[in-house]
């Protein structure tokens, strides 16, 4: 599983947010949508955008961290956070092309998807429900990868035009 990542099909996402529930149940012990490593944005009803780390090959977040709190998991290539070293400065959020990392609403430390050590819960529940908006894929780095790490509103604006035509240009 050297090159796994979670690919996403925005148009297929129902907005059920079970991915957030499953993620937070695993990592936080209970439902906690804003602590989930995956968050589904909905800038306008019908436009649902799952937002999570896409493991860019150049890892701008890691480079930006002043305390070297971030590192790459050698097994999964996921970004790992050393919570002792994190000073909650938000540099990683700003460096990320999609502003994906969050400061955990509990301890205010940077929080990023760790791919559940290769078997992500969000993907499992999405697949179980037949949406397949999230898919675990094993493929090498590509220039397209950064298209999946973009601001959710930017993605939603494209989705709006795709779904609603001209009207889509004005809903967000």
């Amino acid at each position, binding site marked *: 599983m050297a090159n796994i990542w979670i690919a996403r099909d925005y148009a297929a996402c*129902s907005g059920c947010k079970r991915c957030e529930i499953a993620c937070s149940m695993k990592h936080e012990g209970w439902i*906690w949508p804003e602590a989930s490593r995956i968050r589904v944005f909905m800038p306008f009803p019908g436009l649902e955008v799952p937002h999570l780390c896409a493991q860019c090959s150049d890892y701008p977040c890691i480079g930006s961290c002043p305390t070297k709190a971030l590192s790459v998991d050698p097994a999964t290539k996921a970004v790992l956070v050393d919570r002792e070293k994190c000073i909650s400065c938000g540099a990683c959020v700003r460096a990320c092309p999609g502003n994906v990392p969050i400061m955990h609403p509990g301890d205010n430390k940077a929080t990023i998807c760790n791919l559940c050590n290769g078997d992500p819960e969000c993907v499992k529940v999405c697949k179980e429900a037949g949406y397949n908006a999230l898919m675990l894929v094993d493929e090498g780095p590509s220039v397209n990868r950064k298209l999946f790490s973009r601001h959710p509103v930017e993605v939603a604006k494209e989705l709006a035009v795709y779904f*609603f*035509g001209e009207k889509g240009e004005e809903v967000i």
Partner: protein
Amino acid sequence: MPGGYAGKFLDVDLTKERVKEVSFDDKTLWQYFGGRGLAAKILWDRVGKKWENLDPYAPESPLIVLTGPMTGIYPGGRICVSGKSPVSMGTVGSTASTEFAHELRCAGYDGVIFTGKAEKPVYFLVTNDGGEIMPAEHLWGKVGEETIKMLNREVGEEMKKRKPNVGIWREPGMVYIGPAGENMVRNSGVMSKICHAAGYGGYGALMGSKKLKAVVAKGRGKMPAPDAPEAAKLLWKKAHQILIANSEMRRYGTGYLGYTVGADLSSEPIKNWQTEWHDEKSYAGPRFEQYWVKKKWADFNCTTNCMKVSCIKNGRWKGDITDLPDYELQAYCGTNLGLFEPVDNIHMSALIDNLGHSGINGPNTMGFAAELYQRKILTKKDIGFELNWGDVEAFTKLAWMIAKREGIGDVLAEGSYRAAIKIAEMKGKKPEELLKYVVHVKGIEIGAHGTRSDMDYVHDASYAGNVQGGDHTSTIGDGYSDMSDAIFADSGVFCDFCRTNRELEFDFAKAVTGFPITVESWRKETGPRIVTLQRALLMLGGPDLKWEPVKDDDNPPRFYEPLPEGPYKGKTTDKKRVDQKLMAYFETLGWDERGIPTKETLKRLDIADLEPYMKKMRA
């Protein structure tokens, strides 16, 4: 404290601009659970002996917005809106699916209780730091889509300003009113997500009377902790497995019923219920499906995904967006107005929702008006234009006129029942002459399922005995048992379309709350307590109208007219069976033969403080 509750409620006085936190003791939560039940209890405690004289629009009249202990944990999160209903003068637990519900709970609150009246339009913002009254003059007059867009931007920017360094803020959850609610269209809804409505009860108007445009929540906290986390997690998984196996609902939602309920069951409202049968192939599911841009659309924690997203991309209604529409709006914003073109129905549904009409109730009144036009009781002079069945332009105009209370719209904005009385007065007729065309029970316009063919899930006494009048989600069928389920969903506050099975649901409730709750305890105590309290408040009614026991515990006259056509031609609702079932229902609940709760029943259910009022009613 029991599990599943945040434990705090916000108590807001909009006149004095005061916000405080309140809580309810364990006994109250056990006895009334949440949502519909707890709202009725709060209302009775606060209003009490003033009930009959309380104008729902008076500043002191509470508007109650509640979740329940199941909300956001059990699949299908919803919000329950309640208060003294401006329509029935009783109470309705009116629910809508919305992310607002779990956002509120993650902000640390189970609900918000509003009293008073703001001087200028406001919205109420709830975060983990508490609740705040925010100016909303710039939002007043805006339709649903525009309100969502503006609040998403504005609240997003405000959150970012307050905490700039926590990563990107996700949009908040919200419920709001459209122009219809602002102008106190009596049967208007509290809206969410462009097409979701807490429709029954007229709480849009109640919210409008307080000049409250929206309630918005952004919560960053954990969902309230359950009493038994491992059991709750396991049951959550099981519940979803059942919902995921519900492939019919997931594939079609209710979006194919616009044809089949009429063609197969003969129970679909057509032209103000003059008939309930049609065989219009133009109205078949696939002709709606071609407008679906998203085929699986769900709310928080829901895998039923009964919704689809529809959009009209060209032609005169270009840019109209709604859900399927669902069956209720296919009927009420379609066949009941004589519209049999899917594109017209999508347009009408999108418009009605955007204006903040309740999609069942508002268009029921429009259909009523069109029948008066057909019968030449209302004329072109009264309305300003011709109002023929199937004229989509005319109904579009009428929907706006009602929302803005312009011309005849001002009269129709009072809802079907009161409009009939007003128009009768205008025309020098007796109220009965017009009330026979009003399809309602206790002032609440009936959902899109008729009883005459006896083929649908509703039967003879389903609406007649319903404490929420024409509300099709709370009907009585075989006595009390099925209504008890509705009260449970509305009080736990989750979606009817996420029902799994009783054992699982009650095990779930027990795992979440830690209460010794069972099917039995609900059937014998909690459910009857809630419905008995609702019945008492409904029959107390006032000030502008009061329902008469027995006489008003009945279907509207139209439901006793024989069906004029179709495979069930000639069939109609059996009045004798209605009476028999009502008696059985009253007896099951420990009410007397006129449906007044007995002294013993009130005592058994620990609502003996109602006795003086019921005693007066019994005399």
